[in-house]
């Protein structure tokens, strides 16, 4: 499944990286402690989090997650969005909780 299909199915907004929406996704990781996510998220994962500081761009980029999915209407600062665009990191956003997003993601990918 592509990020664009995920965004359409879960009604997600693009915060950054809309130009890279053809990227393939595989699996999902949920977590907010960045060092923890660093060692566990896998390449291609949809990473669901409520963290929105600049370090999420670094973690997404280093783990090669397909995209960052911000739950509960979390909005990152402008400098985070700029950095994400520079690093080709896709950030999506939703008003739903991480749990609701994960359940829906499971439904559409199983």
């Amino acid at each position: 499944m592509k990020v664009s299909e995920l965004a359409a199915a879960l009604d997600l907004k693009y915060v950054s990286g809309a130009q890279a929406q053809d990227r393939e996704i595989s699996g999902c990781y949920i977590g907010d402690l960045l060092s923890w996510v660093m060692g566990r998220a896998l390449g291609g994962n949809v990473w669901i989090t409520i963290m929105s500081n600049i370090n999420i761009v670094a973690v997404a980029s280093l783990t090669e997650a397909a995209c960052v999915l911000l739950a509960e209407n979390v909005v990152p600062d402008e400098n985070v969005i700029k950095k994400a665009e520079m690093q080709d990191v896709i950030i999506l956003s939703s008003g739903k909780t991480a749990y609701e997003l994960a359940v829906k993601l499971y439904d559409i990918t199983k």
Partner: protein
Amino acid sequence: MKELSLHILDIVQNSVKAGASEIEIDINEDILKNLLEIDITDNGCGMSEEFLKTVKDPFSTTRTTRKVGMGISLFEAAAVQCGGYLEIESEQGNGTSLKVFFEYDNIDRAPLGNMAETMITVIMGAPDINYVYKHRKAGKEFVFVADDIKNALGGVPIDSPEILNWVKEYISEGLENAGINM
């Protein structure tokens, strides 16, 4: 919390409640030592030895309306999470000093946040207090002293909207000129 400045805001509110007339916020970004240090010192009423022992406990507070006042515990957690720690010294009648240390480049260290906004917020909350804000990075320093501004204003309240706006610009530019990017 998303940014360390929100913790600073919280701690400064403690100092205000402690009846301080001067509150100093001292930030040192020591990249060579990979250290970020935030010190907050006030001349408020201080804490008893007994209370000081329990202050890092998330279930301790001086507030009676709510059982859990978590300011110091949360700040400590933010530091410990990235290899740092929190020290607190206080003496009844002689104020309180809080020192919080962070590993500068730790991925779990939250960004500092916007200090100009933070200073405006604390000034609005309690404009009579003399806030001293010092920020050092790579040998450069920015210093803001609220009483200096008040003296220069000659009676115009520091918390009037135009002055606050000016103060915000003054701090933002001062930090930028010292090579401290927010």
